[in-house]
C-alpha cells in the first residue's frame, strides 16, 4: 500500500518502488497576482519506473502543477502553500531566481511541449548537450563531446556526429523533441516532467517519441509525469492516471481500471468525447467550458457540467476518497460505491 492520497492500491508495475516515491507533491497551492487560487491543494506521488498521466482540459492546472514541481512558476504566479519533495528532500523555498537548490536538471528535468522553440537558435544541437553534461556531470570538453554523441545515439539520432553539428532549425519537430529528451537526460535525472511533449507532432513521430520515453523509463528507472489532454496517449504510455479539474485532482486510478470504469463523471465525460472505432457510438463532447479561476461555482466545481448532479453537489465540495483501488472526489461516485 502506498501512503498518502496520491497513491492507490493498484498493483505496481515491475520495478516500481512505491514505498520511496521519487517525487511527492503535497497539498500544492498556487495563486495568481489577483490572489485567485489556481491550484487548491494538489497532491501526487510518483515512483521510479512509473509513468503517471496527468490529464484534464486546458486551464485545469496540469501545466501549473508541472511547473511547480520544477520550481518554475510563470511570472505573476506564487506558491502559497504545500511542499515539493524530490527523493525525500523538501524544496519549499525555491522560486524563479534560486535554481531549485541545484535540483533542476540534475534530479528533475523538463521535456517541453514545443521542442524546437525550447532550443537556442544560435547554438548547435551538440552545444546544448555539452552545456548540460559539463554542468551536471562535471565532464571536460572532450568527455562531454563523447557523452553527447552517445546521448544522441540513445535517442535515435544517428550518426550522432552529423546531428551534433546541426542547428535546431535544420531538424524536424520530432527530431528536436528527441534532442530535448537527450538534453533532459544530461543530468541523469530521476524524474522527468513531460508537458504535452507530443502535441505538436504528427502521429508517427508521436508514436516514436512515446516508445522512446517508455524505453527510457524502463531501462533507466525514471519517474515520468506525463502531462497531456490526449487520453489516447495516456492509454499508450501511462501506468496510472490523475485527472485534474479546476485546480484539483478529482480522480486517480490505475490506467486499465480508469479506461474500464472511470469513477468521476468528469472522467466519464472525457472518455466519452474520444471518437471510437469499435464502439460505434456517437462522440459526446462535454457540455460547457472550464470556469475561470475567479468564478468557480460553489460546492463541486464540476456540478454545472455534470451528467448526474445531486442536491449535495451544489453546496458541498467532495473530498478525495478511495474507490475501487483509486481515489475519487465525487458525491455520486461515493454513493454508488457505498450502495
Amino acid at each position: 500500500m502506498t501512503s498518502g492520497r496520491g497513491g492507490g492500491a493498484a498493483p505496481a508495475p515491475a520495478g516500481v518502488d512505491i514505498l520511496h516515491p521519487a517525487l511527492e507533491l503535497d497539498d500544492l497551492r498556487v495563486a495568481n497576482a489577483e490572489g485567485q487560487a489556481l491550484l487548491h491543494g494538489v497532491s501526487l506521488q510518483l515512483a521510479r519506473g512509473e509513468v503517471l498521466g496527468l490529464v484534464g482540459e486546458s486551464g485545469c492546472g496540469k501545466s501549473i502543477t508541472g511547473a511547480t514541481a520544477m520550481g518554475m512558476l510563470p511570472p505573476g504566479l506564487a506558491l502559497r502553500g504545500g511542499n515539493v519533495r524530490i527523493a525525500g528532500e523538501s524544496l519549499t523555498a525555491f522560486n524563479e531566481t534560486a535554481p531549485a537548490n541545484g535540483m533542476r536538471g540534475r534530479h528533475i528535468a523538463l521535456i517541453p511541449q514545443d521542442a524546437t522553440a525550447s532550443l537556442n537558435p544560435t547554438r548547435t544541437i551538440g552545444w546544448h548537450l555539452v552545456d548540460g553534461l559539463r554542468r551536471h556531470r562535471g565532464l571536460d570538453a572532450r568527455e562531454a563531446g563523447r557523452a553527447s554523441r552517445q546521448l544522441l545515439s540513445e535517442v535515435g539520432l544517428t550518426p550522432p556526429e552529423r546531428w551534433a553539428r546541426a542547428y535546431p532549425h535544420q531538424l524536424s519537430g520530432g527530431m528536436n523533441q528527441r534532442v530535448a529528451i537527450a538534453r533532459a537526460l544530461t543530468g541523469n535525472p530521476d524524474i522527468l516532467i513531460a508537458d504535452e511533449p507530443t502535441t505538436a507532432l504528427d502521429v508517427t513521430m508521436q508514436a516514436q517519441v512515446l516508445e522512446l520515453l517508455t524505453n527510457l523509463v524502463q531501462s533507466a528507472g525514471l519517474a515520468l509525469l506525463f502531462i497531456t489532454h490526449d487520453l489516447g496517449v495516456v492509454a499508450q504510455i501511462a501506468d496510472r492516471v490523475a485527472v485534474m479539474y479546476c485546480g484539483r485532482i478529482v480522480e486517480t486510478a490505475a490506467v486499465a481500471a480508469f479506461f474500464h470504469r472511470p469513477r468521476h463523471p468528469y472522467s466519464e465525460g472525457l472518455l466519452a468525447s474520444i471518437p471510437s472505432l469499435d464502439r460505434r457510438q456517437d462522440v459526446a463532447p462535454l457540455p460547457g467550458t472550464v470556469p475561470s479561476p475567479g468564478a468557480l461555482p460553489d460546492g463541486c466545481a464540476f456540478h454545472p457540467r455534470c451528467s448526474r448532479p445531486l442536491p449535495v453537489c451544489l453546496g458541498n465540495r467532495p473530498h478525495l476518497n478511495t474507490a475501487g483501488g483509486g481515489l475519487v472526489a465525487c458525491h455520486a461516485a461515493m454513493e454508488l460505491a457505498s450502495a
Partner: protein
Amino acid sequence: MTGYFLRRTLRAVITLWVAVTFFFFLLRVDVNIGLLALNMNASQEAIDSFNTRWGFDKSLLDQYWLWITGALQGDFGYSFRDARPAADWVAERLPKTLELSLAGFALMIVIGVPAGLAAAIRNGTATDRTIMSLAAAGYSLPSFVLGLALMYTFAVYLQLLPSTGSTSFAHLILPAATYGLTGSAGIARFTRAAMLEVLGKPYIAAARASGAPPAAVVLRHAVPNAAIPVVTMLGFSVGQLVGHAVIVETVFAWPGLGQALISAVANRDLAVVQVLVVVFATFMIGANLLVDILYGVLDPRIRTAGGANG
C-alpha cells in the same frame, strides 16, 4: 557562406555606383556651374571661360564619362578654390573624422550596451527606470545642445579641457563624449528592447529548466540572440556617423570631413562636394555590408540557409 558574402558585396558595389551617379547628375542638371561658382556680377565671358576651363560646356554624359573613368583611377577632379586635387581634401581630413568617429562609436557601445543589458535584466526595478530616464533624456537632447553644454561646463566654467581644435588627446574628449553620449541613449533603449524580447522566449525558460544558473542564462543563451538586432542597429549608427560628424565637427571646430562638406557646399566647390559624397556613401554602404556579413556570422539560420543538413 562564400556565396552569401559575394552576393552582398556585389550588391553593395552596385548601390554605391547608383548613389554616386545619382548625385553626379543631381549636382549638374539644369545648373550653370560657372554662374554659381563665380560672383553673381561676373561677366558672361568670364562664366563661359570658366565653364570651358572646367569642362562644363561638354554634354552631361561626356562629363560623367570623364568623371567616372577618372574616379576609378583615383582622380576626383580639382577644387575650384585652390586647384588642388579634390581627393587631397579627403586624405587630409579623413583621419581626423575617423579618430573622432571611432572614439565616439566606442564610447557609444561601452556605455549603451551594458546600460541596456542592465535595464533588461533588472526590468521593472528602480535601476531599469533610472537608466531608461537617462536614455530618454539623452535621446531627446540634440547633439549640438549637449555639445555646447559640455563645452560650457568643462571648457569655459571648469576650464579642464580645451573647447575647440584637434591637436591633442584632451581636444578629443569633449567632441567624442558628445558623440558617444547622444548615440548611447538610442543603443541602450534598443539593447534593452532586444534583450527583453529574447528573455521572453521559450528557449530561455528551457535553459532555466535545464538547470543553467541565471548568469549563464543571460550570457550564454540570451546575449548571443539579442546581439543580432543590436549589431544591426550599431551598423546603422556607423552610417549615421556622417550626420553627427557634420554637427559635432562644426560645434567643436574639428577639422574633419563634416566641416569640409559644409565649407565645400558654401563655396560651391563642386569636385570636393562630389568626392565627399563618394566618401560618405561608401561609409554608409560599407556599414550596411558589414552588418550583413556579421548577420551571417551571428545567426546560423542565415549562414546555413540552403545548407545540406536536415
